[in-house]
C-alpha cells in the first residue's frame, strides 16, 4: 500500500504558519507523504497542487476568518477537476456557526485550536484512502 499523500496549504494573505508547519511535520512523522505549499495560496493554486501531487488529502490552515470564501471555492474547483474524492480538512480558528456550512459543502474534518495532533492523524488514517486503491 502506498503512503497517503497530503497537501498542506496555507490559503489567503495570512502568514501565521506555525500550525501548518507543525502539522505537516507531525503527519510526516506519522508516515504520510507531506507536500507543504507554502504561503498565500489561492484556491486555484491549491487545487492545481492537489492534482499535480496526486493528493489523497488536502489540509488547509486558516486563522484569518477567510474560510467562508476559500473553502467553497476550493470545493467547487476540486469537483471540476474530478478530485471530489480527496479528503479535505481544515485546521484553525473557525467560529461554531460556520462549521455546519463547511460540513455541508464537503469539508470532512474541522480541527479547532488545542486539537491533539494524534486525533488529526487518526482522523486522516480512518477517512482517507490512497487514491490508487479507489
Amino acid at each position, binding site marked *: 500500500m502506498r503512503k497517503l499523500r497530503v497537501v498542506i496549504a496555507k490559503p*489567503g*494573505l*495570512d*502568514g*501565521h*504558519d*506555525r500550525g501548518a*508547519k*507543525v502539522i*505537516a*511535520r*507531525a503527519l*510526516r512523522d506519522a508516515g504520510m507523504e*507531506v507536500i*507543504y*505549499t*507554502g*504561503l*498565500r495560496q*489561492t484556491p486555484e493554486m491549491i487545487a492545481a497542487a492537489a492534482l499535480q501531487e496526486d493528493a489523497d488529502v488536502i489540509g488547509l490552515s486558516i486563522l*484569518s*476568518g*477567510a*474560510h*467562508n*470564501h*476559500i473553502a467553497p471555492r476550493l470545493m467547487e474547483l476540486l469537483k471540476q477537476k474530478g478530485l471530489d474524492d480527496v479528503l479535505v480538512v481544515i485546521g484553525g*480558528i473557525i*467560529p*461554531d*456557526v460556520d462549521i455546519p456550512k463547511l460540513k455541508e459543502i464537503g469539508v470532512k474534518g474541522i480541527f*479547532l*485550536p*488545542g486539537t*491533539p*495532533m*494524534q486525533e488529526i492523524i487518526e482522523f486522516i488514517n480512518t477517512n482517507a484512502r490512497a487514491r490508487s486503491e479507489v
Partner: protein
Amino acid sequence: MKAVAETEKQRWERETLEPTLKKSPERAQSFTTISGRPIERLYTSEDLDGLDYKRDLANPGEFPYTRGIHPTGYRGKLWTMRQFAGFGTPEETNQRYKTLLKAGGTGLSVAFDLPTLMGRDPDHELSLGEVGKCGVNITSLADMETLFEGIPLGGITTSMTINSPAAMIFAMYLVVAETQGADWKTLSGTIQNDILKEFIAQKEYIFPPRPSMRIITDIFGFCASQVPKWNTISVSGYHIREAGSTALQELAFTLRDGVEYVQWGVDAGLDVDDFVPRISFFFNAHSDFFEEIAKYRAARKIWAHVMRDRFGAKRDRSWKLRFHSQTAGVSLTAQQPYNNVVRTALQALSAVLGGTNSLHTNSLDEALALPTAEAATLALRTQQIIAHESGVTNVADPLGGSYFVEKLTREMEDGALAYFDQIDRMGGMVEAIERGFPQKEIAESAYRFQQAVERKDKVIVGVNDFVQEDEPPIEILYIDESAAEKQLARLDRLRQTRDNGAVARSLDRLRAVAKTTDNLMPPILDAVRAYATIGEMCDALRDVWGEYEETPII
C-alpha cells in the same frame, strides 16, 4: 575525614535534602521552563559567583539598566496601557477607540487587516474574504481621516502595527495630523516597521530583504529631522515567540535584529545617537513567570552594552532599551476561555515586574475571534488592578537580588550573546535569514513544544488535562462581509472622485525615486496626499523591486 571544600549548598543537600528525597521523591525527574530550560530546585548566593552589583545590575536609571531605566520605577509614571484594536471599517474602529479612551486607556494601538498589511487593495484577488477580518481596513488617506475622526492626534500617542507598507501608513497618519493642525515636531507614537521579524516569523513581507531595509533606513533619516519624537521602529520578539521560539530565541533574535537595523542606519551615514534613541522594542509576555522577567532584565543589559561598546553610542538615551509587551496570544485556549483571564493576568504581572514601558493585555475570547468590547474592557481592567491594587508598583525592580532571577538573567544574557556570535559569523541577520537559520531554529522549538504537550510533559489546563465536556459557548464578535462591501464601494467612489492624473504622476515619481538612493518618504507623502491607494503605492514599488518569496521550511 571531613571534605575540605563542602559548600553550604552541598551541606544542605547532604544533611537536609537527601533524607527528604528518600522519603518523598519529587514529582518529576527534571523541571524545565516552558522553553525547556532546566531549573534547579534551589538557588543560593553560590549561584551568583562573580556577580558584581554595580557592573551587572546597577541601581535603576544607571548603566546597564538591568534594574530598569527609570530611577523611580513606576512611582513616577505607570506603564502606558495600550490596547491593540481594530476591525471592520474605519468607522467601526473609530467607535472602539473612543470607547477605549473613555475607559481610561492611555494610548491607541491600531490593528490593520491582512490586505492593508500586505499592501493590497480590497478588490485584489488575494483580499477575498480578508477585508476587515483581522483588523481595520485602510486603503487610502480617506480611510485614515475617518479612523481618527474626533481624536486629536496632537494629544495622544498612537502605535501602529504595520511593517511592509509602514512608510505609506505613517505618511497617511502624518497628513491627517497635519490637517488636524498638529505639529509633526511634537507628534508621538510608534510604527512597528520591523521587517526582519516578518521574514523570520510573521511572514507579512512584500519586497525582498534589502530594499525593505532601505525603506526602514529612509524612515530613520526622515524622522530624525522631521518627526523627532516618533518611535521609528518597534523591534519585535512578540511574533517570533508566537511562531514557537523559546524565550531565549525571542530575546536573541530580537536584539540581533535591533543590531542589524542600527548597523544599516550607520552604514547609510546616520549618527547612532541621532536615531537609536527612537528605536523601541516589543516583547511577548508568556506564561513562564520568572523566565520572562529574566528575559526583560537581560534585554536591557545586553542592549546597553551593545550600544555603548559595539556602536560607540554616547547618549544614555541610546543605551536605554524601552519596550512594549503583549501577553501571549498563543497561550490562550479556546477551551474554558475564562481561564484566559487568569493566564493574561499572570503574564501581565511578569511584564510589569520586568519593567515594561507599555503593555497590551489580551482578551479572554481571542483564541476564538477578535475580542468583544466587554472582553477588551476586562483585559484593560486587568492592567489597572495590577497597577492600582497589587502594590507591585511601589518599588523599582522588586525581584532584583533574587538568587533565582539574577541567575536566570545571567543565563539569558550568556545564551543571547552566543546566538549573536553565531549570527555575526554568518555575516549578519539579513544573511542568517537568507539561509533560513532563525526560521529553522523556531520551527524546531515549535515542534518540540507541541510534542511535549502531546506527551503531557507540559500541561495546558483545559486542553490536555482538567478537560471539561459540554462547555457552554461564549458570545463572540462575528465579523460579516458588510465591511468588505463598504470598503469596496468606498474605493470605487474614491477612484471616481480623485484626480487620477495626479495619482499617476505621483506613482511615477515614486517608481523613479525607488531606483535612486534618495529618501522615499517625500514621494510617498505626495502619493498619499493625492489619495493613491496602498495597493497602488506598493505595486509601484513591486514594479521596481519585485516581491519576496520564501522557501518553505518545515
